[in-house]
């Protein structure tokens, strides 16, 4: 991230609990409205189930729940961001997804070190654009946490 040449990075911006988060656009496949989610029994609490995404069964993760935030009711503005990472196709439920912005790579700073907040574990960095603070989430840590393989399997 310390390249001398100034280059821009395109981000999808979404909201959780009135805070703004961002994912690089190249990791996002599409943004969908929330449709019927089929619950999958005996999985992690944050896995809300699966949806039919144009013929592909796609698991849905509630990002609020993943970050151990208070869960919210589905509203008109609730969206599912379908991400594709390392052949894993997963949807994230977010409060709102309404912005695509370009920011200079060098404006991204390493995440602040806060102990004891779950959310902080899944952050790649923060970017300050004027008065806005964007939190860049780390898909790898969200999707492939070590404890998932232990907890997710029963029987």
């Amino acid at each position, binding site marked *: 991230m310390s390249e001398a040449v100034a280059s821009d990075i395109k981000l999808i911006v979404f909201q959780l609990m009135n805070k703004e988060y961002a994912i690089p656009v190249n990791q996002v496949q599409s943004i969908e409205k929330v449709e*019927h989610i089929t619950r999958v*029994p005996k999985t992690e609490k944050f896995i809300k189930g699966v949806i039919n995404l144009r013929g*592909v069964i796609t698991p849905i993760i509630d990002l609020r729940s993943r970050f151990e935030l208070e869960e919210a009711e589905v509203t008109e503005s609730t969206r599912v961001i379908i991400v594709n990472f390392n052949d894993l196709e997963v949807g994230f439920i977010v409060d709102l997804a309404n912005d695509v912005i370009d920011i200079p790579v060098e404006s991204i700073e390493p995440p602040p070190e806060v102990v004891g907040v779950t959310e902080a574990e899944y952050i790649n960095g923060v970017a300050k654009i004027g008065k806005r603070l964007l939190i860049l989430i780390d898909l790898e840590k969200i999707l492939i946490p070590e404890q998932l393989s232990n907890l*997710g399997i029963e029987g």
Partner: protein
Amino acid sequence: MPRGVGQMDMNQYLEVFIEESKEHLQACNEQLLELEKNPEDIAIVNEIFRSAHTLKGMSATMGYEDLAKLTHQMENVLDAIRNGKIKFNPEILDVVFLAVDDLEAMVQSIADGGDGKRDVSNVVAKLLLIENGESPANAEAKKEVAVAIAEKPQAAKSEYDEFELTVLQQSRDQGFETYEITVALRDDCLLKAARVFMIFEILEKIGEVIKANPSVDQLEEENFDQEFTITIVSKESNHDIQKKIMKVSEVDRVDVNIISLENLRQYEEQEVTDVTPEKNNHVEIENTSNEDQESKPEDKKAANTTKHSSSKTIRVNIERLDILLNLFEELVIDRGRLEQISRDLNNQELHETVERMSRTTGDLQNIILNMRMVPVETVFNRFPRMVRQLARDLNKKIDLEIIGAETELDRTVIDEIGDPLVHLIRNALDHGVETPEERKANGKSEVGTVVLKAYHSGNHVFIEIEDDGAGISRDKVLSKALSKGIVTEQAAASMTDSQVYELILASGFSTADKISAVSGRGVGLDVVKSTIESLGGSISIESKLGQGSVFSIQLPLTLSIISVMLTEIQQEKFAIPLSSIIETAIVKKTDILNAHNQQVIDFRGKVVPVLFLNEIFEVPVFEELEDEFYSVVIVRKGDKMAGLVVDSFIGQQEVVLKSLGNYLTNVFAISGATILGDGQVALIVDCNALIK
């Protein structure tokens, strides 16, 4: 004809080459085993020779020198056998088998993207020793002559020039006949250059090639349609020449005409002023066909008789079939949706149209699924070799009998079933069949029999491996299982025989007193069991001490589209595969009994445990149902049964099985999902996981 590949782009032929090579090698393997049984049968040697010869031609064309070298040497030995120069014996067979092994390894390496190179000098040397009657130097010299002869026509122009005419004249004076041979390759012939190479090889043996039209260069580069004309001088009769060329596969038609020099001279005079190669070519072809008319019917007949054995097929990449199936699956989902809409709207015309569409797609489904069906032969055919080798290693005498090799299974299943079968056959050979001495002592024939049987039954395919060996000793298995802590003493006492036998499929089990290299590493059989179960199948064992055992594998016909019973629990829908269901029943609440912490029902005289799916799947409750009856789906896994309680049955439906993806793996008691007519996802219940 030079053996170089030139600039030809071989990649497009590579797949065909690999497929054909594998087929020819398989043919070699099968025929060699035949030959072992009937060592005097020259027809079999001929068959092997032909396969080896084709393989040589193909590999030389493709530029795989080692492959060509080894097949060439193998061919020489086979040639010597069929000409009675050397006597066939088992030792020779072993070396030829060794050579085939090497060839297989090379083809495999090519298939894996390697260069197909391998040190074959050892086997080649052995083959040379066998061939002994004919010195290697001789063979080498022959090859050079062949090359020299082949290169000569390259200098030739399209017409017969003065030099050629002189040659023809001279040959004729020496009693050689001049033939103009028109060869037509089959339209679907893919390795044209290879066929040309093979035809030239034959011609060079029976005479001298004077001219080719198009030129040898062009032929080599496949710069021709399906037909080409070669002029040769030979002492053979035209009939014999035709027959020999027809031996090359993918040759459609061969016309052999005697041409008189007078005719040729005339030609020359007519055309000598300005002849373009094309024009000449044209006239010549016309000429041959005119001259040809009388002999044609006969030729046709000959062609027909050689062709009848091959059925008309095309090769299709399995990926394309997968895409086709995927598209069809989309259609099945839409069909389900349409059916639902038509039910809701209750419009007669719509109803009829949807009905007709359902029938058509039903037929389409059968055809597409059938296209993916492959005979189990493709897996079975490697076993005779394996059994032969193993029997030798183990010093046992074993006959392998294969029944129902034509039984068809889905390609996906075929790809997976090979390894489990290898394990089971090894197991039968090693632990099942006794040594000849033991068998004799027990009053059996010295030769043990292993039967590999495949057959269809309903929506399943069964594969059985039966041996007439020692059988499984219940006591031995039990004591072993107890010592390994696989079962408890109490459990052991109440187990049925087949339950005991199934213990040998548990991990960490090996019944052989000593561990042998063949099987008995104790890791094999539990892998067999899990592979078969992952395919949606099951395995059971029957055995009689002293008389033998039967391992029976049950497999689903296809994996992608299955029939399910759709059920509802609160607001959720679950699909239960019909293959696991025995029947559905409505049971009074008061008929449910309690037996040590387990609720059971009496189902046709059997005590069947009852499982409440809403509890197992922690289904959220929206409304309390007050009903004095339960809807129960009776499912089974092998001999064991269970009753799954649901709220209501929706009905039977064909659905497309989809995986939950890479993220959700190992979800308890869920084997996959499917998309229903309304676009929603329903989970498919894995009954095997529910029945312990």
